[in-house]
């Protein structure tokens, strides 16, 4: 299955990209996705080992199971206001 990953702010600067599509086995978790991204090497490997994520606009965690077409955003520490 494919999921879309969005990157923002410092994460985007590290990865050099604001989005990417990742192919994963069925029922893969958020942790598996992050691992796969970091294994790309280069700036991707510099993404934090622990990052907050949102799946389809909702905060999720490492054990969240993904589904085909999910939009997964890596959320750097937030600084609104």
């Amino acid at each position, binding site marked *: 299955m494919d999921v879309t990953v*969005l990157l*923002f*702010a*410092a994460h985007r*600067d590290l990865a050099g990209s604001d989005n990417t599509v990742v192919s994963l086995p069925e029922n893969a978790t*958020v*942790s598996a996705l*992050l*691992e796969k991204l970091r294994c790309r090497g280069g700036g991707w490997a510099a993404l934090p*080992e*622990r*990052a*907050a*994520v*949102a799946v389809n*606009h909702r*905060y*999720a*965690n*490492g*054990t*969240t199971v993904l589904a085909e077409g999910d939009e997964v*955003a890596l*959320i*750097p*520490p*937030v*600084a*609104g*206001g």
Partner: protein
Amino acid sequence: MIWSEVTADPIDTSRLLTRVGDPQDGAVALFLGIVRDHNDSRPVTGMDYEGYAEMAREQLSTIVREAAERAGSDRIAAVHRLGTLAVGEVSVAIAASTPHRAEAFDAARYVIEEVKKRLPVWKREHYLDSGAEWLDGRIPVAQCGK
């Protein structure tokens, strides 16, 4: 009315105030967040606000609804701006009206505190001396690691 928006347009504070208020309300509280000219005594010339806009809209709407429930008032409105702002520009505005004053203060305060905890927005400060940096922020709720 309960109202919220995340937008690249300049914030009109007077217009926001017209979104709250009701004959039963004796109190209005307004909070404005503003780009300031320094950070830890380092001169700042402006700020980029980047957001995950769709999610930020949903989060801000949720936060305002939570504040309304706590305050027992449906007259709460909030707007957060994205884009490049100059010193002195309003980055966030929150208005709440309630029958009595404590609830209006509490509602405005609740919204700004939750915005800082949960809204997927990031700021990059531009410095007078050199360059720009993403500001440290807060890790929002759940983390995931290896």
